[in-house]
């Protein structure tokens, strides 16, 4: 119990440091990446390459485990179907992402440094998540 909380804390720290170093917490840089018809900045392709390149091997190893290395249940997603919620959700998410250049990870990693605007974004995001939860019932 203690081990999994400690590893999650470290993973969160590492994730956030990676986001900051990579430029993901800089909304202008994210917009620059999405602006393929303008002054395109391909840096974020390198973020994905690094992140996917490393974790690919971890997920390959994980798919053969019945318990994690600290004896936790493995909880890999089981959904396989390409359905409407997946597509509509991704469209809505993409529009929001493109409107300001923030997604959930970088937004949370910027709470302490981003001032009022980031806080406003995070509160709206939490309300959005709560609305989803109400509608799902």
């Amino acid at each position, binding site marked *: 119990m203690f081990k*999994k*909380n400690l590893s*999650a804390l470290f*993973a*969160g720290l590492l*994730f*956030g*440091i*990676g*986001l*900051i*170093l*990579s*430029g993901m917490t800089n909304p*202008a840089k994210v*917009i620059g990446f*999405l*602006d*393929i018809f303008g002054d395109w*900045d*391909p840096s974020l392709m*390198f973020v*994905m390459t*690094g992140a*996917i*390149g*490393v*974790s690919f*091997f*971890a*997920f390959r*190893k994980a798919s053969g485990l019945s*318990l*994690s290395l600290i004896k936790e249940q*493995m909880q890999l*997603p089981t959904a*396989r179907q390409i359905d409407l919620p*997946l597509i509509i*959700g*991704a469209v809505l*998410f*993409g*529009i*929001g*992402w*493109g*409107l*300001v250049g923030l997604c959930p*990870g970088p937004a*949370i*990693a910027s709470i*302490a440094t981003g*001032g009022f*605007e980031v806080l406003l974004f995070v509160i*709206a995001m939490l*309300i*959005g*998540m709560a*609305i*989803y939860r109400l509608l799902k019932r």
Partner: protein
Amino acid sequence: MEDFTPIASLIGGILIGLSASMMILLNGRIAGVSGILGGIADAHKSDVPWRMAFLAGLVLSPFAYMLFSQPFAAKLAVPDLQIIIAGLLVGIGSRYGSGCTSGHGVCGIARMSRRSIIATSVFMAAGIATVYITHHMG
């Protein structure tokens, strides 16, 4: 293209990949931020602390980063109403679509999930279209 940062972005990406690797190999979980956050409300009691710990790590990460360098402070140069609409869409969309940039874009693609590859293509296309409309039209 003024601010191309391939090396910093690649190293940052590798750290994100290491974090996702830790989460799956140690905790048996996907490092998807919208799922970890949005799932708290309905999570089993024993699943709340690790979620809070991961999120606390994210919130505290700029302070850890300060040990090496000055972190970039996100500055949003758009009207408050646009920020609110964007936040609502990101919140609803990431939950309805079962993931965001981390869960689908990194973890999902790394485990070669067809759902995640499609979701990532769709939200990137929607993001590109949105930036085109807000920056190059009107």
